[in-house]
């Protein structure tokens, strides 16, 4: 089980039995997840042979995969690494650490760290405490007194401690990188002494020779040292007095290579052939104290008369190597940390043209053979460009590759990863390959996308509401502006009609009345338009719903039209299933519905006819029907009578005024009440409108 996220995993909560553990083995990577450490190294054999059953780690066959991976990783590392596993910090380490441990090796293997290094027990107790709490610690040139070989020894070390995550995402161990710096510290001290000596020196020759950062040494054809500059004094630790006249080879060349050097010189003197003259070469040099360090060397031949001299310019490149080592160190830390936590581990060729291996752990399809089509296989087409440019940048600068991008998952779905990769460099700083890890961030991305969608929808809705509000405001203002002059006309005609300007003749009265009535029509149209516009934006239309008696409202509506009906000699037969039928409605609006139906019934019926109105309760609904014996509506026209501005042509339409909005309102208002309206009609026989409203 790799992931810490519970939403994908099959088994998460089991922390107990070993049998449960052995079942949840994720797809394996060839190298790191196996539990056979045998053929990896000397320490691999020892770890395999060790009787772990006597420790709390239990037999290797039952080790959690994260532990196997980290051990495999250690065994591959050139750095001295020791893993302190579990709360007791059982020690598992690699060959370089075995060298470091000196006489303590191999007793340290499988030993508790506090007991393995009793002289620094307190130091290590603190390391375990901090590490298991998830903290990384780092000490530069830390000096501790160790008894590695039976005697006290001041050991200077660069120490790096990182917590190592276990199966459940909690630190279960501490990985230590132990780089001994004792030699370097000594060399540094010597350099400082040499520098002090140099400052005291009055024998300064040429400025270049004396102050050059590179060591410059000259020898004769017999290989004897003739001159050396202060930088050489600093670099090798010999004083001039010590060195001049001695054989160069025995002074600064490691014993292993001394014979080769002597042979090369003799050979050149006799044959004139050399592989190294006037070339920049990297070799190992030796200091007075016997320590070996890498240098870059250029040798030039100088002839003075008969004498043949050779000048070597030497640059200490151990800093350069150290930088590479630092990078390897950080890479090692990176590997150690990501290997246990990432969802995907991959390796790439130096230029990324070839994927060497990918362990997809169920998220991406695995690749164990070199794959040159990885880009199209794993990467979403739209993200390939950005990936290639990020790769280019990382390759050019030999820096970490980092990118969030879409991937084609093993299950065929589209997912997201956060991918990062470090270049693995050789001693010369060339990229050997890239080691990468990617986390499955699909869920996070999806959540992000959802959130963005929600924001977009909300913004859209707000924009629409704003437009709708602007429209409502415009309609309100427009109706106000249209009403003002018409209102003024109304008031003044009225003044005239009421003799405010003196008595008027009957004909003047008739004309003024016609003007007044038409002005009233205009005011009514404005009101109708406003009402229609408000109903159109029905989401902004607020109903004032309260409990009312539908029977009473219909009675009032009929009463309001009493004069009209009488004028047309029409009668209304009203009946109700109950004395009163309560419903939660907007009374003003529903009365408008009834009024419109009654008005239409009257308008489109001839004088002297009868209308039937019935209100009946049907469970939690109420039906209101208005039937007439009028002109009726044809089948085709029945489809559109509820549309805006519809006026149906019939034998009475010439005598009927209207804007064609009444039934549109009726339908809108009924729908706002979650009700329905139906129409049955026969041309020449009459129409029946039935409104059904929910009572609650």
């Amino acid at each position, binding site marked *: 089980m790799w992931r810490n996220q519970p939403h994908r995993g099959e088994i998460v909560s089991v922390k107990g039995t070993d049998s449960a553990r052995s079942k949840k083995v994720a797809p394996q990577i060839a190298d790191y997840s196996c539990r056979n450490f045998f053929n990896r190294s000397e320490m691999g054999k020892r770890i395999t042979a060790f009787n772990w059953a006597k420790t709390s780690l239990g037999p290797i066959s039952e080790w959690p995969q994260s532990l196997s991976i980290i051990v495999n990783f250690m065994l591959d590392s050139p750095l001295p690494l020791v893993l302190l596993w579990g709360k007791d910090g059982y020690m598992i380490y690699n060959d370089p650490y075995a060298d470091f441990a000196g006489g303590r090796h191999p007793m340290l293997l499988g030993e508790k760290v506090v007991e393995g290094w009793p002289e620094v027990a307190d130091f290590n107790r603190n390391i375990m405490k901090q590490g298991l709490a998830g903290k990384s610690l780092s000490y530069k040139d830390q000096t501790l007194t160790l008894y590695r070989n039976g005697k006290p020894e001041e050991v200077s070390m660069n120490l790096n401690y990182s917590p190592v995550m276990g199966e459940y995402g909690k630190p279960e161990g501490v990985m230590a990188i132990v780089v001994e710096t004792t030699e370097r510290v000594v060399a540094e001290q010597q350099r400082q002494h040499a520098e002090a000596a140099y400052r005291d020196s009055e024998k300064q020759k040429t400025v270049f020779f004396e102050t050059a950062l590179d060591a410059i040494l000259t020898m004769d054809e017999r290989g004897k040292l003739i001159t050396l500059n202060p930088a050489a004094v600093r670099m090798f630790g010999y004083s001039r007095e010590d060195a001049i006249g001695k054989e160069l080879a025995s002074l600064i060349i490691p014993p292993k290579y001394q014979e080769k050097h002597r042979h090369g010189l003799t050979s050149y003197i006799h044959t004139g052939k050399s592989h190294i003259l006037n070339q920049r070469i990297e070799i190992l040099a030796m200091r007075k104290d016997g320590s070996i360090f890498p240098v870059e060397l250029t040798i030039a031949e100088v002839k003075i008369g008969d004498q043949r001299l050779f000048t070597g310019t030497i640059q200490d490149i151990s800093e350069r190597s150290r930088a590479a080592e630092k990078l390897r160190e950080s890479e090692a830390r990176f590997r150690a940390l990501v290997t246990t936590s990432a969802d995907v581990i991959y390796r790439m060729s130096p230029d990324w043209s070839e994927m060497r291996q990918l362990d997809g752990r169920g998220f991406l399809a695995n690749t164990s053979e070199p794959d040159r089509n990885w880009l199209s296989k794993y990467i979403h087409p739209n993200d390939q460009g950005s990936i290639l440019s990020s790769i280019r940048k990382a390759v050019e600068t030999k820096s970490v590759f980092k990118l969030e991008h879409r991937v084609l998952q093993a299950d065929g779905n589209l997912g997201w990863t956060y991918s990062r990769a470090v270049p693995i460099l050789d001693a010369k700083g060339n990229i050997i390959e890239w080691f990468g890890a990617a986390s499955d961030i699909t869920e996070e991305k999806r959540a992000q996308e959802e959130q963005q969608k929600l924001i977009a929808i909300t913004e859209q809705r707000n924009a629409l509401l704003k437009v709708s509000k602007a429209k409502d405001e415009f309609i309100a203002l427009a109706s106000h502006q249209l009403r003002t002059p018409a209102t003024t006309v*109304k*008031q003044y005609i009225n*003044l005239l009609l009421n003799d405010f300007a003196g008595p008027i003749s009957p004909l003047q009265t008739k004309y003024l009345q016609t003007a007044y009535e038409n002005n009233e029509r205009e005011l009514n149209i404005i009101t109708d338009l406003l009402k229609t516009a408000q109903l159109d934006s029905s989401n902004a239309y607020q109903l004032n719903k309260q409990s009312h008696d539908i029977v009473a409202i219909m009675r009032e509506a009929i009463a309001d039209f009493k004069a009209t009906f009488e004028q047309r000699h029409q009668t209304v037969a009203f009946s109700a299933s109950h004395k009163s039928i309560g419903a939660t409605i907007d009374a003003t609006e529903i009365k408008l519905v009834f009024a419109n139906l009654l008005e239409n019934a009257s308008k489109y019926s001839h004088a002297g006819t009868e209308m039937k109105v019935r209100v009946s309760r049907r469970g939690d609904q109420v039906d209101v029907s208005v039937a007439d014996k009028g002109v009726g509506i044809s089948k085709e026209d029945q489809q559109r009578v509820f549309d805006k501005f519809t006026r149906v042509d019939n034998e009475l339409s010439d005598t009927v005024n209207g804007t064609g909005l009444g039934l549109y309102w009726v339908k809108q208002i009924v729908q706002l009440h979650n009700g329905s309206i139906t129409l049955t009609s026969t041309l020449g026989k009459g129409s029946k409108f039935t409104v059904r409203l929910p009572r609650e």
Partner: protein
Amino acid sequence: MSKSVLVIEDETDLREVYKIVLSAQGYEVYTAKNGVEGIKQLTAHRPALLLLDLFMPIMDGKEFLRNIDVNDYSETTFVVFTNLSNKETEAEMLELGAHKVMLKASMTPQQLAQFANETTGV
């Protein structure tokens, strides 16, 4: 002493017609063409009835109501008299202290006079 009415209305013709009609009923009619003038007239005359238009320059009817406390004028009936008809406006004006909101377009001069009489108890 006759009762007084204050008409706050920016439309000159309307201001005039209301003055004619209400004066004929025996009212002392004061007029103002915006809210600022209206406040001056209100404090000076403390009318029995105040007709307030909404859309006016300088200070509109809404601002007018915000700038006074109707409780300071217990003898005055505040009527918003406007051609802007919607439920929101009506609710807002009543909230601001108006006693009634009426649609100008729906009132004839006689109806206005009748309303004034009923309101002021003449």
